[in-house]
C-alpha cells in the first residue's frame, strides 16, 4: 500500500501564549511513500517527524492537505479505520495484561462481520508471536521482560491485525547499543517477511541509513531530501543534509570561489568551472582526505586515534567551522608531519560546496 501525502501541513497554537504565530510542525509535505518498502523518517528532535507519523496514523488531524493510502482518501478517517499498526517509543504495553492478552487486545475490538471467534484470535496471536519470536513469553507481564522483548511484543501487537501500514516511533531508542543493532536487523527481517509498507521515525542517522530502503530527511517541519540512503549520502541537496548524515560528521570549512577554483584559505582544493565567485561552505567527508606530501591542503596536526583497520587523524585549520577536523585514513599509511603540518589532497567526489548564504548545494 503506497502512501501519498498531498500538501500536508500541521499547525499547533504556540505554547507560549504571548506569541500569536502558530508553530508549523509539518510544512507542506508532498511526496509518495512507495508500496512495500521500509522508510526512515529522519531528523533532529523537535523537527516534526513524530507529528508526521501521527498524521499518517490518524492520531492527529492535518490543518491542510490530504493523505491517501493507495487510491483511498484517509484524511478524515479515524486511526482504527485506516488499518495501521503503531509501535511507540516506550512500547505502551498494557502493564496489567500478559503478553498474550496484550497482543490479543486489538483483535477484541473488531465488531460486526469482522468479529473473530476465540480460535481465530488465538491463531492470529500465535502467528504474530511467532513472527517476532516471543512464543515462549506469552504468560509474562511487561515488567517481567527486557526492553528488547517488550519491543517485540509491541511489534507483534501492531502486526496482529494485519495492518496495511506499520508505523514505528523511535523504535530503537530505548534499547542499549548491542540490542539496538540486533533489533534493527530484526525489524528489517520482519518487514521483508510481511511486505508491509513500514515507516519509522528516528533521530539516529546511522539507524536510518542501515536498514531503510528510503529515507526522508526533515528539519523544522520542512522536507529536506528523500531518496535511497547511499544516494543522499553521496549527493546531499544542502548543508544540513550533508552534516546530518554520516559518522564521523562531515568537515565543514569556510571557503570561497575565485575564478573557477574553490579555496580554503589560500589553498586551492577543487576545480569549480562555471561557478560564480563568492563565499561558500566546503564540506569534506572524513574519507575524502588523501595523505599527500605535495597536496594543496595543509592542516595543523593535533592527534590521531587508531581504531584497528582505520586511523582517525585529527587536525585543525583556522577556517574550520567546528572543533575537530577528522580524516579517516588506513592505519597502514605513514603520517608525515612537517613543521607541525600535514598535507592532503582531496577526493573530488567526497567534497561538496554549498552557497555561503542559502546553504544550498552548488553542483559542479
Amino acid at each position, binding site marked *: 500500500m503506497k502512501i501519498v501525502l498531498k500538501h500536508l501541513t500541521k499547525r499547533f497554537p504556540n505554547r507560549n501564549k504571548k506569541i500569536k504565530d502558530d508553530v508549523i510542525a509539518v510544512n507542506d509535505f508532498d511526496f509518495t511513500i512507495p508500496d512495500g518498502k521500509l522508510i526512515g523518517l529522519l531528523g533532529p528532535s523537535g523537527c516534526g517527524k513524530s507529528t508526521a507519523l501521527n498524521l499518517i*496514523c*490518524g*492520531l492527529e488531524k492535518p490543518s491542510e492537505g490530504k493523505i491517501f493510502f493507495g487510491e483511498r482518501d484517509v484524511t478524515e478517517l479515524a*486511526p*482504527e479505520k485506516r488499518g495501521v*499498526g503503531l509501535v511507540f517509543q516506550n512500547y*505502551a504495553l*498494557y502493564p496489567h495484561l500478559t503478553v498474550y492478552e496484550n497482543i490479543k487486545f486489538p483483535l477484541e*475490538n473488531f465488531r460486526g462481520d469482522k468479529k473473530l471467534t476465540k480460535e481465530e484470535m488465538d491463531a492470529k496471536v500465535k502467528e504474530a508471536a511467532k513472527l517476532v519470536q516471543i512464543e515462549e513469553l506469552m504468560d509474562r507481564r511487561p515488567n517481567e521482560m527486557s526492553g528488547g522483548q517488550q519491543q517485540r511484543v509491541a511489534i507483534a*501487537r501492531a502486526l496482529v491485525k494485519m495492518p496495511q501500514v506499520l508505523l514505528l516511533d523511535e523504535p530503537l531508542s530505548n534499547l542499549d547499543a548491542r540490542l539496538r543493532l540486533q533489533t534493527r536487523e530484526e525489524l528489517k527481517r520482519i518487514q521483508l517477511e510481511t511486505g508491509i509498507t513500514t515507516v519509522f521515525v528516528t533521530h539516529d542517522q546511522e539507524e536510518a541509513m542501515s536498514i531503510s530502503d528510503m529515507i526522508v530527511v526533515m528539519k523544522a517541519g520542512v522536507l529536506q531530501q528523500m531518496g535511497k540512503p547511499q544516494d543522499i549520502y553521496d549527493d546531499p541537496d544542502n548543508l544540513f543534509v550533508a552534516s546530518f548524515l554520516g559518522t564521523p560528521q562531515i568537515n565543514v570549512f569556510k571557503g570561497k570561489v575565485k575564478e573557477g577554483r574553490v579555496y580554503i584559505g589560500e589553498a586551492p582544493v577543487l576545480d569549480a568551472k562555471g561557478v560564480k565567485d563568492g563565499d561558500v561552505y566546503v564540506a569534506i567527508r572524513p574519507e575524502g582526505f588523501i595523505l599527500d606530501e605535495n597536496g594543496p591542503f595543509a592542516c595543523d596536526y593535533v592527534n590521531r586515534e587508531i581504531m584497528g583497520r582505520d586511523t582517525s587523524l585529527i587536525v585543525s585549520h583556522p577556517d574550520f567551522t567546528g572543533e575537530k577536523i577528522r580524516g579517516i585514513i588506513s592505519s597502514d599509511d605513514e603520517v608525515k608531519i612537517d613543521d607541525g603540518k600535514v598535507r592532503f589532497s582531496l577526493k573530488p567526489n567526497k567534497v561538496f560546496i554549498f552557497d555561503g548564504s542559502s546553504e544550498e548545494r552548488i553542483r559542479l
Partner: protein
Amino acid sequence: MKNKTRNVIIYALLSIWAIIVLFPFYWMILTSIKSYSSYNSEYVPKFIALSPTVENYVTAFTAVPLAKYFFNTIVFTVVTTGMMLVVVVLSAFAFARLDFKGKDLLFSLFLSLMMIPNELVIITNFVTITNLNMRNTFSGLILPSVTSVFYIYLLKENFEQIPENLYKAAKVDGTSDFRYLFRVMIPISKPTIVTITILKVIECWNSYVWPRLITDDQNYFLVSNGIQEIRENGFGRENVPAMMAAVVVISVPLVVLFLVFRDKIMEGVARGGTKG
C-alpha cells in the same frame, strides 16, 4: 548498658499504650461470655470468665433484632459503596480522559466543595429527605452519601498518571473510550479503587449521625443506631453481658477485614483518610 535501659523504657511505654488500646476489646469479649448472674454478682469484676457461656450471644440475636440491624448495615454498605464507585469512576474518567467545554471550571468547583463540612448541609438534607417522604427507606439512607469529591479527586489524579501513549495505542486499535476505561484504566488503577472501597466500607459500617436522623423505625436501623437503641431500651433490663455480645458481633467484621487487608488499609488511610 545505656542502650539497654533505653530499650526497656521504650518497650515499656509502647506496651502501656498497647494495653490501653487492647483492654476494651479484651473486656468486651470477657464480659460477653460471662453469664448475666455471675456478671452482676461480681462487685470487683474478675479478669477471667470462670464458666464461659454463649447464652449472651443467643440473647443478643433473639431479644433484639440484631440480625436485622446487621443485614441493614450490609445492604447499606454494599449499595452505597457500589453506587459511589460508579459515580466516582465515571466522574474521574470524564475529568481525566475526556475533553469538554468548561472542564477546568467545573473541576475547580468540585474541589471547592471539599471544604464544605457535612454538618452544614445535613440540615437541609434532613428536610429534603423528610419532604420527599424518604424517611425510613434505604434510598433516603443511601442517596446523600454516594458522591465523594475527595475520592473523585484521588482517582482522577491516579487516572492521569497512566501514560498518554497507552491511550494512543488503544485509539490506533480502535478501542472505544469506555472499553479503554474498563479494560485499561480501571485495572491499572486497581490499588486506588481498592483503597477507596475500603475507606468507604469503614465509613458506612460506622455511620451513625445520618441514619439516626433519617430512621426511627427499627426495621431500618443500622448497627450503630441498633447499639444505641440496645443501650437505651435494651433487653428490658440492664443486661451488660448481652450488650457486650452485641458489641463484639458488631466489631468483628471490620476487625477481620482489617487483619486481612492490613497493609492495604493502612496505606489507604495514610494516603487519603480522615475519620468520618
